[in-house]
């Protein structure tokens, strides 16, 4: 039978390992994309026990091959009556090294930004975050050019805007984004954002979505949402669509942001759509975050805050095997979600994850792509002693 061995390392995987030859009752559970767990026992008078501290790493090997590694998170000391020393032992328990990702949580896009929901939004639309490739939009006067203005719009100066030049003469379904940077200096307070579009809009401020997938049927309606902003620089981005109109037509969006008085009145117009905005049309192909990009972004933010997070062997473009990530549609993560929870969400749909027990590096593959065919064959009467078969239908 293959032999199991265990060695203890410091959390940084530095220095010489301590082999735990006298340990017993060893077990571990290794599951795809999960942290798993382990347990083992050492006599209380075993000198090796003293060097096993919380946060240290235990690497389990099979016939000398590094198999799996876990982090010591708990110790249970078993003591019995004097004279029964053989039963005086300590059980060490913990989770797999993937649990090292639990040392960080998802932060909001901007601390002190608009508190409109406890969600960190990774959009497929890179333009929500990136001005490159954007050009000045075409601004269309609200009242004179388009006969169907939104009812009760609060500002006469607001322009309908769209990228792409003059209105099209034949209808083409289109999607576009427009952006504008602005600064607030009125203290941490509530602002009211008015918006509408023909025929759909999504709006984000500082990368946080403040609308919820507002779609066709709104083009004559003035919509509004209240957001909270701290003093400083901000960016508002509007995704517009025009997907449903069968005749020659063109899209537009309008938006106006006001400071709000304590009595609910509009005080100051801070920013509104006009020709100084930038934007671009884009095709329906998603443009933004990949599963790797989400993790790399969150990891780099955590590292910048001083959190020790395992290294990764993938990036925003390719997985560990060098395979291009499928571009992901939108992904919303609850602010405060721990890193392991992020992995769990991504593992549902996008990726396989595993920790390298030799380097403590997080590997990721396009979902279903980890591993491959092997020569392992199992058969009853040969190398299978028990088989528990379950069929769910």
């Amino acid at each position, binding site marked *: 039978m293959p032999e199991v061995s265990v060695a203890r390392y410091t959390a940084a995987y530095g220095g010489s390992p301590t082999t735990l030859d006298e340990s017993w009752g060893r077990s571990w559970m290794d599951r795809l994309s999960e942290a798993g767990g382990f347990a083992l026992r050492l006599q209380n008078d075993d000198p090796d026990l003293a060097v096993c501290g919380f946060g240290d790493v235990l690497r389990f090997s099979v016939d000398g091959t590094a198999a799996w590694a876990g982090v010591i998170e708990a110790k249970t000391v078993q003591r019995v009556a004097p004279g029964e020393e053989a039963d005086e032992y300590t059980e060490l328990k913990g989770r797999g090294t993937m649990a090292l990702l639990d040392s960080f949580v998802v932060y909001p896009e901007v601390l002190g930004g608009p508190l409109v929901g406890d969600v960190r939004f990774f959009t497929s639309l890179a333009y929500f975050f990136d001005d490159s490739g954007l050009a000045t939009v075409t601004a269309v006067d609200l009242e004179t050019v388009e006969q169907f203005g939104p009812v009760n719009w609060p500002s006469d100066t607001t322009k309908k805007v769209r990228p792409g030049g003059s209105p099209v003469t034949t209808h083409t379904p289109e999607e576009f984004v427009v952006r504008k940077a602005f600064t607030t200096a009125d203290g941490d307070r509530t602002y009211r954002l008015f918006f509408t579009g023909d025929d759909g809009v999504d709006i984000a401020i500082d990368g946080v979505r403040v609308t919820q997938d507002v779609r066709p049927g709104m083009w004559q309606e003035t919509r509004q949402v209240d957001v909270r902003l701290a003093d400083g620089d901000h960016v508002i981005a509007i995704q517009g669509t025009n997907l449903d109109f069968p005749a020659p037509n063109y899209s537009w969006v309008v938006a106006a942001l006001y400071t709000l008085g304590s009595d609910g009145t509009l005080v100051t117009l801070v920013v509104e759509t006009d020709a100084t905005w930038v934007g671009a049309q884009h095709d329906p192909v998603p443009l933004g975050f990949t599963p790797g990009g989400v993790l790399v972004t969150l990891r780099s933010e955590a590292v910048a805050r001083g959190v020790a997070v395992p290294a990764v062997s993938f990036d925003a473009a390719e997985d560990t095997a060098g395979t291009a990530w499928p571009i992901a549609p939108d992904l919303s993560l609850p602010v405060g979600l721990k890193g392991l929870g992020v992995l769990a969400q991504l593992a549902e749909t996008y990726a396989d994850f595993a920790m390298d027990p030799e380097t403590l590096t997080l590997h990721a593959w396009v979902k279903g792509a980890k591993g491959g*065919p092997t020569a392992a064959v199992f058969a009853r009467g040969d190398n299978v002693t028990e088989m528990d078969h379950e069929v769910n239908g």
Partner: protein
Amino acid sequence: MRVTNSYLVRWSGGYTVVADAASVTAHGRHEDFLSVGDAQSTAEAERLALGLLSRVAWPSESIALAIEPSESADTPYVGFEVGDNVVAPDAGGSPQQWRVMGITVTEDDEGNAIYVPELVDDASGS
């Protein structure tokens, strides 16, 4: 029937319905409720629901084997690891390809390691 092939999905903006039409045709409609309150669009909610449906909309098969490796090829972490494909008997005893979704190792009182790979049929393991 434990198959679920139609979710009533609650997302942050309301409700939507996501179904696996092929499974509905094959097994009849079997509904369940799914709350994805953090999802910010119907597209995101639908993607999450479809990810779950890919695992629950069709009958699935899994086995846990207690094995006694006899050579490198059938030794966990030496011949195969989590995520790999191996051959093992199906419910009728015929060899079939499975994906290794987990490996549990436990030492008995004599210090012998008991290796238990958890396998799922290859189609549902991806």
